[in-house]
């Protein structure tokens, strides 16, 4: 039985840009952040200066509940680089606030991945001390490593 875990190897770490630093700072504080439009209320990600619905520049940061469901998934067996342990399961998550993000599924077997599965964010400090958001089935605790 393979329980998916966060990557512990020397994987590439994000190089935050001027729009995204606040997002990654939030991850370091175990807070998942997204942007919401002050005009039309649309939630958006990746970090931007314009609303994804109405193109207004009146957008502000909010804290996410960290809860969502799997929109799509894949199980990868040929790693992008040798630093990644396979299998790993990239997922697109639709958050309850209505925004999407790309992450990886942890805390269950790869065979458990399915569209619609309820997932919650779990933060993991890995390569170079960088904290990444992963997602696990709601209520599933990660095994001790």
């Amino acid at each position, binding site marked *: 039985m393979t329980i998916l875990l966060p990557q512990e190897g020397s994987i590439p770490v994000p190089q*935050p840009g001027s729009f995204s630093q606040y997002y990654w700072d939030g991850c370091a504080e175990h807070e998942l952040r997204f942007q919401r439009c002050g005009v039309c209320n649309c939630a958006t990600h990746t970090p931007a200066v314009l609303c994804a619905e109405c193109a207004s520049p009146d957008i502000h940061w909010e804290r996410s509940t960290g809860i969502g469901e799997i929109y799509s998934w894949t199980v990868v067996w040929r790693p992008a680089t040798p630093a990644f342990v396979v299998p790993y399961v990239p997922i697109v998550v639709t958050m309850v606030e209505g925004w999407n993000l790309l992450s990886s599924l942890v805390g269950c077997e790869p065979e458990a991945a399915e569209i619609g599965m309820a997932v919650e964010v779990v933060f993991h400090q890995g390569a170079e001390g960088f904290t990444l958001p992963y997602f696990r089935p709601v209520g599933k605790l990660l095994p001790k490593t």
Partner: protein
Amino acid sequence: MSKHPFHDVAIVGVHNTRQARVLDGHDARSITMEGALGAISDAGLEPRDIDGVVGSLASDFLFQSRVGPAWRSLSPLGIPAVLEAAMAIACGLASTVLVATGEAGSYRQHDSTAPWTRPTNEFVASYGMFTAAEFALMARRHMHMYGTTAESMAHVAATIRNNGHVNPEAVYFGKGPFTIDDILSSRMIADPFHLLECATTSEGATALVLTRADRVDDLAKPPVYILGGGTDYYGPSYQHPPVWDLGGNRRSDLVAGYVGRQAAEEAFATAGIGPDDVDVCEFYDPFSFELIRQFEAFGFCGEGEGGDFVMSGVIEPGGRFPITTDGGTMSFSHGGASVQLFQRVVRGVQQIRGECSTSQVKGAEVAMSTGGGSGALFTDVLLLGKDRP
């Protein structure tokens, strides 16, 4: 009635160099020069006839051959570059344009996936994303929505790879034939894609020459005309979550999952034809699912019907809509970041000329060449024809 926008333009030269897993002794510049000379020769022209170039390596050709000054574009990625060259000729900015690109020597250590499959963006790189995973997320969503089967995707891969199996110019010539079971029993890369459903990697160059339609009578090969084209784009590839429902702010059915739909509508409208008029589908094949998606996006079948469509006997040699007849990126070649994107156009030209030594579609008069794909957030379309529009 106003004149067709590409009435005065013809594609008159095409050339693929030898394609191989590794081209010893070559780098990108040297193999591109070979491709450029090949296309100019195929047209029956001389280097000094070139007064426009597309692509950074074609710019090298311009300098080395001292045929400048010339019009230039740095447009890199396949069909948009061909359309830009055609527009330059139609506008009178150039009369004979060389489009050339090639790759060799940049990807020889295969412990990581090819560099052009792995962008370093902050929102994807840490999750081990590469092109196969990006496209897999799109395919999985379609399977969920419509029940599209692994068998239908495998049938696409087997058909394309069998076209390469019989093509002596394909890198994977003679490696088949393949059945659906062969495809499904190859190792998994990024579920639902097995190894044999993915593009390969290789080296090689390709080139095209376009000129004014009033010059074609003196040239070596029959002209092929651009009946229409379009380019759909949703933003930078491989930086944002690949979401089927992305977009649609202007029109609800123009979502990223159907990228290429507007481009096809524009191309068909310019050409004054529809999907039923297409004789050969030189569709871009980064992954098996893409062809199912493209048939839906372009209106050959309804949304969600692509799986049944490809299983209905239409995509094989002799079928109503034969696909990717040289073996595509899965078997013919995938020479880097851009070579293979031009090769769908090159093959479309060869089909219209009737000069393909294998999988020639008899009497082909209209070819549809495409590039890109849903996982990359862009799809381009070019309609090629025998008759001057």
